[in-house]
Each structure stands twice: as C-alpha cells, then as structure tokens.
C-alpha cells in the first residue's frame, strides 16, 4: 500500500505513486511520439490518433489542447495551474466544455509536452479527451453534494476513469465513446444522449447497482439511449461495460464515419438483438477476472476523503437577514444555489455566462479568483458543469453572502443558472474547422437581449443550446430552444428547434420552421418567449406550455413577418 498524504482538498481523488508514475510515463511517451513525428518516423496519419488521445486537436487557426477534468471535479490548486498555463501558453484564458473539460484554443504543438509535464505536477493530464477511445466520463456537477443523491457517482466515475485508461482492447474503437453516470433520480448529466448512460441506485437491501442505457447521442442522427438492463450488481459493473464495448468494437460500423457510433449499431441491430449480444458476452465475461470487489470500491472511496463538515442548521439567521436586506443576493440564491445533503451547506453555481459574454470562457485572473474562493469557502474543491459553469459544491450558507459579494465585485455573480441566459454553445466557426456558422456571437447577442436578471427569473427554466453545425456539440437537439447553424450559399443561417429535453424525459426538439439569419434568430427567441409568457399557466415550464398549446402559436408569431 502506498502512503497517501491526507488531502487538504475534500472530495477529490488523491493520486498515489502509481497514478503519478503512470501520468509521468504517459507524458514522456507523448514527448517521444512528437519527436518521432517531427523526424518523419510517424506519418501524420499515424500521429493523428496518438495526439488526439493526448487531447491535441488541429483547429481552424491553431492547435487546441483539451485537458481532462475527470467527471468535472478539480482542486483549487489544479485550477490555479490551468490559469498559469493559460497565461503562459495561451492568450490568458481557457474555455470550459460541455463535457466538463477545459480547452485551450491557441496552443503550439511544440509546447504541448511541456504543458503536459506541468499538468502532471498537479495530477492532471489530457488523456483520452479526444480520439476513438472511451472519453472522459461525465457526471452530475453536484455529485457528492446534492440532497437528492442516492449513490456517490464520483467513486464509480473514477473506477471508469481508471478502467478506460489505455484499455488495451478498446483504444481503437470505431468512433469516440462517451459515458455519463448519475447517482440520483434527477438527471443532471443528460444520461440518455450518451453512448452509455448509467444510473447508479440502491435496492431494498441498500446494495448499489446500475441501470444501463445504451445508444443515445446527438450529432447528425440524434437517438435517445435505450434501456438495456435495469440492474447490474456493483460487482459486475466493469464486466458489463466490457461486454458492451466488446460488442461495439466487433460489430460497430467502420465503413462510414457518420454511422460508426454505437447508436447506429443499436439502431441497426435493434434494441433486442443488441441487448442479447451484450448479455451473451456478459455471461462469458462474468467471473473472478472482471469482478469489481467491494474492497476495490472501498479503497477508491477512501481516496476521495470527505469534507470535514461542521454541524450546522439550514437557513441560519445571518443568511436570512442578508437575503432580506439585499434583493440581488436573494435572487442569486434563488437561481444559482442548490440544497446540499448536509444541513447548513449549499452548492453554488458560478455562472460563466454574463450578459454578452462568451459561454464557458474564463480568464486566468477569474480562474485564480475562483480558486481562492474555493479555498476559502468550499474545501478547496470545485466542479465544471456540463452547462459550462463552475460550481462550489460545499459552501456554508452563512458564508454565501461573502462569496456572492466577491463574485459580484468581479463580474461573476450573474444569477442565471438554468435560465435563458445560461446558454450552451459550441466554439462554432470562430474556432472550429467543422462549423458552418458562428455560435458565440449569437449566444452573446441573445444573452445581451435578455440581460435583465428580473426578466430572466420571470421567464424561468429555459435552456437555449447552440451548435454551429450538425455535429451538435452545443446539444441543440435537447435544448428547450435549440439553434443549429447552417450554411446557405456561404451565408450563416440558423434553424430553430423547440421542445428538446436533456433529462430523463429525454426529447429531441422539433424544427419550428425555415432557417433565419442571426439577427432574426434573436428576434425569434424573443417572440417565442412572449408567446410562452402570454400562454403559460401558473408555474408551467416552457416545454410544458409548448406541449399543451403545440407549435402553432409559436410558429405563427416567429414567421409572422415573413
């Protein structure tokens, strides 16, 4: 057993000598691969998947390095390192992604081994953030903190991180492979639009098991994940995934990149046949070799440690007084703060979506400030959400006002988590070689139009998601309002969909009508919101009103001028 220094940071998996040695070796391996590419020993075709498996993409203008934030959880120290790298090797900022990672968009190939080396100093890496392998596992940004949590998904996400790392059989899959895991009934990780979506739950005896959905995904052919097994016992967690991946690796299509995801295999084989293949493979694999022993799970759980919570009560007086005295603070609490499983604590979302801002971007200075706040108020731990915001998950309620004051003073107190200004957008044509249209300027224009926090709160829960092309990195299919950039004879147009839902009641949005220009899109969103507000019943969410009244009134209003 390796000695593990007691973590100063709560709730972050602590590396030991073996973990560190592995990451260090991987850095050296990549350094050698870069050298072999530069010497011509590796062709560009051969080098490409190797660099992708180290998170390095070639974009429109430069290399992009995508750094892994395993299941979105990181320490203040790690965030400071990211800030430093942003300043030293990029343009002083980074971009948090919908898969809870961080991207630097202006990286030089020759700097990457040095950057990876610096990351390794804080137990970070860029492994498997790209390429046709199992990618960074994502989960609930409130994992380990949410009051409604049944199973702490971090433990199983970390098990997956380890098990998928340089998997000898599944590193050259037909296509990328994304797994998401949730440990509560609420779905905050878009489980059913992942290649594999897992719900961790407990039976009557309190034992942990998993429900598996397979074959969900967005992109040019969106599919909702299908339930293939309701209960996989904890000890078979790895064996069952091994079975799914083996079926996919053997039978997934390799003749057409657009048909290579597991969703197409599940669709073409049919849910029943696919499930049967997996079950047969699972029956063969199940056994001592792949058994996830309780001791292994306990050991990994131990490595997370736990925040040393104090015994407190909910809604302390000073917190209530601060809310009464300061309506802006009260609004931020109502919108951005979630109940914590421990009384007296709360999980606070730091919105990276200021009105007119670039969704998910943070400057090095902001990262450093947030790292300091994490140290001061959340046990030095923070999370990246799939909505591209940051979360301080364990804040004492009586410290929320101090936290908010510091955030507000630095432009980070935007009260719009889950509201219309909390837009998810892909990098779009500003960065991406695949894009048809820009996403960021449109997100900026929409959030500027709806800048008024009171108006946003009045509108309520309404997710806008923007993708600059059909690959759907901005998840437009599952946006309550989705926007897809299309190219019409060299001009940027946007197609609007409504009624998408990323939660367990997953729905793909319907196209409202013909694509419109960027300016018209902003007006169209406003029109949709007005129709919603004038039709909604008390407490009704946008998607519920839409279901009740149908597309008619929305379509009529949006295209009235055409």
């Amino acid at each position, binding site marked *: 057993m390796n000695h593990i220094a007691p973590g100063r940071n709560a709730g972050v998996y602590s590396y030991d000598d*073996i973990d560190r*040695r*592995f990451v260090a*070796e*991987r850095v*050296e*391996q990549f350094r*050698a*691969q870069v050298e*072999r590419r530069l010497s011509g*020993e*590796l062709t560009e075709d*051969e080098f490409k*998947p*190797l660099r992708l498996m180290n998170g390095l993409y070639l974009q429109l203008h430069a290399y992009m390095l995508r750094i892994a934030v395993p299941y979105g959880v990181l320490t203040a120290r790690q965030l400071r390192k990211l800030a430093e790298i942003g300043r030293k090797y990029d343009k002083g900022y980074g971009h948090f992604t919908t898969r809870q990672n961080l991207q630097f968009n202006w990286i030089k190939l020759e700097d990457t081994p040095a950057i990876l080396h610096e990351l390794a100093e804080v137990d970070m890496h860029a492994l498997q953030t790209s390429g*046709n392998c199992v990618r960074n596992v994502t989960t609930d940004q409130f994992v380990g903190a949410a009051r409604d949590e049944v199973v702490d998904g971090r433990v199983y996400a970390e*098990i997956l991180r*380890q*098990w998928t*790392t*340089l*998997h*000898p*059989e*599944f*590193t*050259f*899959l037909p296509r990328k492979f994304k797994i998401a895991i949730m440990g509560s009934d609420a779905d905050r990780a878009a489980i059913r639009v992942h290649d594999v979506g897992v719900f961790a739950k407990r039976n009557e005896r309190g034992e942990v098991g998993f429900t598996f959905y397979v074959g969900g995904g967005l992109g040019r052919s969106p599919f909702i994940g299908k339930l293939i097994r309701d209960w996989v016992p904890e000890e078979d967690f*790895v064996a069952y995934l091994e079975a799914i991946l*083996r079926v996919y*690796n*053997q039978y997934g299509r*390799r003749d057409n990149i657009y048909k290579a995801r597991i969703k197409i295999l599940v669709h073409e084989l049919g849910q029943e046949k696919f499930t049967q293949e997996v079950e047969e493979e699972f029956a*063969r694999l199940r056994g001592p*070799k*792949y*058994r*996830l*022993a309780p*001791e*292994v799970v306990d*050991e*990994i759980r131990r490595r997370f440690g736990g925040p040393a919570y104090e015994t407190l009560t909910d809604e302390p007086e000073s917190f209530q007084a601060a809310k009464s005295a300061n309506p802006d603070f009260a609004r931020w609490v109502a919108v951005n703060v979630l109940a914590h499983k421990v009384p007296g604590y709360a999980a606070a979302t730091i919105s990276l979506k200021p009105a007119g801002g670039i969704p998910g971007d943070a400057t090095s200075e902001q990262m450093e400030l947030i790292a300091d706040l994490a140290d001061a108020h959340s046990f030095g731990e923070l999370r990246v959400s799939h909505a591209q915001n940051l979360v301080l998950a364990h804040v004492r309620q009586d410290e929320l006002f101090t936290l908010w004051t510091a955030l507000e003073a630095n432009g980070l107190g935007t009260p719009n988590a889950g509201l219309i200004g909390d837009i998810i957008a892909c990098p779009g044509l500003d960065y991406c070689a695949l894009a048809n249209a820009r996403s960021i300027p449109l997100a900026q224009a929409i959030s500027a139009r709806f800048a008024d926090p009171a108006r946003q709160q009045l509108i309520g829960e309404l997710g806008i998601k923007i993708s600059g092309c059909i690959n759907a990195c901005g998840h437009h299919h599952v946006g309550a309002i989705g926007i897809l950039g299309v190219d019409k004879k060299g001009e940027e147009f946007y197609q609007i969909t409504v009624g998408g839902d990323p939660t367990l009641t997953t729905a793909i949005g319907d196209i409202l009508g013909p694509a419109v220009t960027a300016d018209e899109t902003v007006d169209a969103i406003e029109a949709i919101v007005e129709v919603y507000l004038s039709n909604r019943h008390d407490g009704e969410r946008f998607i519920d009103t839409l279901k009740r009244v149908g597309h008619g009134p929305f379509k009529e209003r949006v295209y009235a001028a055409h």
Partner: protein
Amino acid sequence: MPLIKDGRIVEDDWVAVADGEPVPADRPAVVTFERWQAERASFDGRNAALGVRVKSGTLAPAIAPDLDRFALVAIEFPKFRDGRGFSTARELRERYGYGGEIRAVGHVIPDQYRFLLRTGFTSAEAPENTNPESWAHALTEITVAFQPSLDDPQPLSLLRRRLGS
C-alpha cells in the same frame, strides 16, 4: 516485412502463401482463411504446421471450430486504426482457449505493441524500414495498467497492475 517478437526483430519461420500459389508441404505456411474454407480437404494429412490469415472483419467465432488445425492465426489490420483485431485475439485466447501463435499483420505501429501483447498477440509484422528501437521501447515506456489482460504478471487489484517489460 520484419517480424517483431519479444521486442526485437526475429527470423520468420513462416511462409505466407498467396491464394492460387502452391502451399509448401515441408515448412510452416500461412494461407488465407478463405482458401482454408474452400480447400480444407487438401490439407488433410499435412505434416508441416499450418497457419491462417484472417481479415479484420472475420471475428473469433468464425474461426473457432477449426482452431485446433492452426498453429498460427494471423489477424489483419487493414489500417492501424481498425481495432477489431484486439477483440478477436482476446476472444481466441479467453473464449476459445487458443494456445498457438497470434500474429498481427497488415498495418500496426509500435505505439500499439503493448496493446497487442495485452490482448493475446505474440508477434507483429512491422512496416518495412521500421525503427526496431521504437518496438523495444514500447515494452518499457508504460509500466502501469488499469485492466486485467493476458500479458498480466502482477495484478495489484482489478484496476491496477504493474507491467513487466
């Protein structure tokens, strides 16, 4: 093409026989799986070792019934990114208990060598002009693994193990 075994270039005892060419009776020979299927009776009574070369789309269950006839299975990688062969080799070993040589042929690169060994391959055909040092180095550069596999001397737990070189 140079043959890699145990991290270095070795002499190849096997002769690869193209379809339509005569199969030498007195030395180890590899024929295509298609030829084996079409002419299997012609190999009855053969004394020298026989190997079979399978395309990446031919999976383990298809060759399993005849495995006891083959001293070598050569699994084709049409391009190195086509990873089906890793599953095929692993199934040959774990599901069908195959104990003969499993060879990677076609396009594989040193960066895959460790994966090949861990999924049950014993040898690999390297591209012409390959750098032998890169293959040797591939055995030592990573010393930690996180999954059970065939090349697996020191399991620390289900999830962690040290790799020998």
